[in-house]
């Protein structure tokens, strides 16, 4: 039996991008995974789960039928070349190499291109465009932080190794005793599993984050605050403000609890400003807890190629960015999109119902390793190889650290990398546009 161990593999589940994974491969199959969390382990083990798509599918008379890759690419290219306002969406579970081809395709056909940021940390991005952000790489927190605050985020469930690898538990250069040298504070609407580990837990009323942030800013800057704010007593807020001001290195990690509750980007604007205010007293940094493994990477690539981090509209032959107008959900809600290409994402399962209803009316092409709700709507569904398991690639960790993704096993027969499929579509679209592909 041919056995090999791939060490220091990069896990492509969440934005932590843990790069210390050991994968045991026997006869070309993954048989053991070490160091990964339960989510990461499932990512490595389930790559051949029954939902894995085998052949390209194409809709004929309402039924999805198996077809060849060439036919599927041809059909996809025809749909996209003909579309007047195509939407290219997804990208957060794909490597940067796929992003680059995707953006080139979007430019070629004058599409709107958007990623899952749009329905996730989009408000965080809009807020940092208003006020900036004080942040760092995660090793800074590991080596220096004596105060760690999770706000509206629950890493125990969503980013299981975040605390043990980067923030609370590891021993760092200036924090030799690990968690004993740090204070963990959790602010959330309920006592989460993360909150149970905290030194201090502040239970904020649902949708009360803006008020609580404002009260903290007032307290940090030495102003009076009411007796109770958003369900949190004054003493607790003042105590936290004092802890924040007197720590040597503080870090806030915020999740969708802050980003997607009432106030949205205004909440983030406020909390980013709080961290900036704290800079007058001590060192403080803040991070959004990015979810999908390469959602950060898409934002980086789109930004360097176009100048904007998400929701870019190429319909005027140059990049235009106007969240609310050029964001995927809005393009669907206004029923503008007349074709969609979905890569490495499942919007049918996550978008508002009205947006999905429009998606169901238009031709949809998917490039995805697994069957999903969206592939059920597809006119053309092309199966792809999994980046980080079957194909190498590049991804950016939630703190912007770029990593090379490993190839652990060979992709199953007929499953091409998404970037290759996109290239084939792009070439076919170009041929169609110049007339050469008419034959």
């Amino acid at each position, binding site marked *: 039996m041919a056995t090999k161990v791939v*060490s*220091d593999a990069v896990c492509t589940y969440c934005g932590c991008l843990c*790069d*210390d994974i050991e994968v045991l491969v026997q006869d070309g199959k993954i048989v053991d995974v070490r160091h990964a969390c339960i989510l990461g382990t499932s990512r490595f083990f389930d790559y051949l789960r029954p939902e894995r798509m085998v052949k390209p599918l194409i809709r004929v008379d309402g039924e999805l039928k198996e077809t060849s890759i060439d036919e599927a690419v041809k059909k996809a290219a025809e749909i996209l070349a003909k579309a007047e306002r195509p939407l290219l969406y997804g990208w957060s579970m794909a490597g*940067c190499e796929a992003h680059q081809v995707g953006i*080139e395709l979007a*430019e070629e056909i004058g599409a709107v291109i958007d990623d899952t940021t749009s329905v996730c940390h989009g408000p965080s*991005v809009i807020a*940092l*465009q*208003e006020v*900036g*952000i*004080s*942040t*760092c*790489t*995660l*090793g*800074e927190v*590991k*080596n*220096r932080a004596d105060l760690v605050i999770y706000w509206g985020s629950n890493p125990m469930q969503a980013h299981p190794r975040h605390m043990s*690898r*980067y923030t609370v538990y590891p*021993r*760092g*250069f*200036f924090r030799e005793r690990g968690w004993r040298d740090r204070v963990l504070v959790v602010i959330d609407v309920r006592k989460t599993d993360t909150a149970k580990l905290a030194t201090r837990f502040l239970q904020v009323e649902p949708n009360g984050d803006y008020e609580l942030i404002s009260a903290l800013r007032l307290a940090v800057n030495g102003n009076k605050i009411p007796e109770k704010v958003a369900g949190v007593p004054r003493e607790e807020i003042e105590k936290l403000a004092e802890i924040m001001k007197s720590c*040597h*290195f503080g870090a806030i990690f915020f999740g969708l609890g802050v980003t997607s509750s009432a106030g949205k980007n205004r909440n983030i604007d406020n909390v980013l400003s709080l961290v*900036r205010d704290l*800079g007058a007293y*001590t*060192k403080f*940094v803040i991070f959004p807890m990015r979810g999908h493994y390469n959602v950060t990477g898409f*934002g*980086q*690539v789109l*930004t*360097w*190629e*176009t*100048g*904007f*981090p998400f929701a870019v509209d*190429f319909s*005027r*032959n*140059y*990049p235009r*960015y106007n969240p609310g107008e050029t964001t995927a959900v809005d393009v669907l809600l206004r029923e503008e999109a007349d074709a969609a290409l979905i890569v490495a994402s499942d919007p049918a399962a996550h978008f508002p119902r009205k947006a999905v209803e429009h998606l169901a009316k238009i031709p949809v092409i998917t490039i995805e390793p697994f069957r999903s709700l969206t592939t059920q709507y597809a006119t053309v569904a092309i199966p792809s190889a999994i980046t980080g398991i079957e194909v*190498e690639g*590049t991804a*950016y960790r939630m703190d*912007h*650290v*770029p*990593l*090379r993704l490993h190839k652990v096993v060979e992709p199953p027969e007929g499953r091409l990398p998404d970037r290759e499929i996109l290239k084939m579509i792009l070439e076919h679209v170009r041929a169609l546009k110049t007339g050469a592909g008419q034959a």
Partner: protein
Amino acid sequence: MTKPILIRNGFVYDPLNGINGEKMNIAIKDGKIVKESIVNPAEAQIIDSTNKVVMPGGIDIHTHIAGYAINGGRLYRPEDGRSTFEPRTSKLRSGTGYSVPSTFVTGYRYARMGYTTLCEPAMPPLLARHTHEELNEIPIVDNMAFTLLGNNWIGMMYLKDQEYELAAAFIAWMLRATKGYTIKIVNPGGTEAWHWGGNVKNLKDPVPYFNITPWEIIHGLAVVNEMLKLPHSIHIHTNMLGHPGNYGFVIGSAEATKDVKIETIKKREQNIHITHTQFSSFGGDSWKNFRSEAEAVAKHVNSHPHVTIDMGQVIPGETTTMTADGPLERGLYEINHLKWLNLDVELETGGGLVPFIYSKVNLVNSVQWTIGLELALLIKDPFQVFLSTDHPNAGPFVRYPQIISWLMSRKAREEALSKFHADTQRRSILATLNREYTLYEIAVITRAGQALALGLSDIKGHLGINADADIAVYDLNPKEELTPEKIEKAFSNTTYTIKGGEIVVKDGKVVQAPMGRRFWANPQTDEELEQTMLRGVSKTFARYYTVSMSNFPVQNEYLPRHNEIKIDATHFT
């Protein structure tokens, strides 16, 4: 195979070969400049350059074009992206941005100005892959990235213990791992102090915990640089940059390397390059009595041939400041209260950004504008001072042609100066300077001098046989009167830009956008020494970095067209 090219009858400015405006023909074949007799005119493309200026392709020794800082700028300044755009064409990609342009248009804009080689001066080792990914998408130009090593924990620890050989082995490994070109130092020790919210205030001020002084870092890295025989010298952004009274840091940093013997596999005459020196030539002790000390700095440079600088010329208007000098950016935020972005990098460096408006009605900004020009006009040998804006810190690179017109025309300077704050002349001697740069000197400060300082003068920055065929043809007739308007117009858009023997710009329009090459330095140190170093370093990695050491080095995939400079550094002298 591209056709050979014959550039005929141009006025050629090629300082490295001593050619000063002579009418000559230049022959190109297979991407190189060749003897004219080799090219058969019947088979060549003929470019008639009668009454035009021919220069080697421009070189920018310091321009923030790729990586974490500039992309942070694009990301958090959509207003900059909305201010300027270039649509796609059948051959070109689209893009946006003025002070923080996107990658494709960065390449096009430089090529239109006749620039063909660019240096990205701030690559954090941990984020090196990002810098290379962006450089791969800046078309046309050859490029390279300088690795940030002036606040590196491991480097500081070796230097503190005066373990120069181990330090050299470590720096060599770092350059290889990051595919970097040289040792970049930004606010030595101060950026590390910033990770606790502090800074270092003078060259003898010890770095918190590491207990090494900026002077020791500068001196130590200069020694290591020459032990490794790197093509370029250390490239430094001095301490206390942007603070009143900081000009002593230029002189002090230069003093720190004065006794370091130059050793390089290439050819260069300096052992320290002090970058964007405008920001380090401030006098006074507060913003109230702020004044220019360019004269003192220039005087020091004039008597110290081991120093080169670049201007960091201020351009009035809006831009985006960005640097690995974290405390500086926080300071700027406290001055202008515009949005502040900070990104510190574990064990290595930091970074910050703040948008900035250089205002003609602001006295400090007005004096700053004079300092860059004073430096260029007061430093006698143009091979010691290069044209730059520290793009985009003092202004976007697209404004270089205006700087050339200021340097070449006293009249243009006087006219500009009259529009700045009325008190400017009391704090600067610019108005008294009569010098006007010649085209020959412009060719030095925009290409020849930069090539020499970078250790690339064998193939770049000149038009001799075997040089890379990177050439700019400008629509400027040196026999006519050169008005500032004519100068600015000519240098804004070339008649032709040729890159690697291919015509990439014609009549100010990009006609094709091939990929350039990445230069990087690969010094090989003694194997046993390297093993000793790695044993120690791998422990530090495992304990304090958040990525595995095996995942740290940049793979060859990120340098699809690279130009490795191999150096044998197995024996130190």
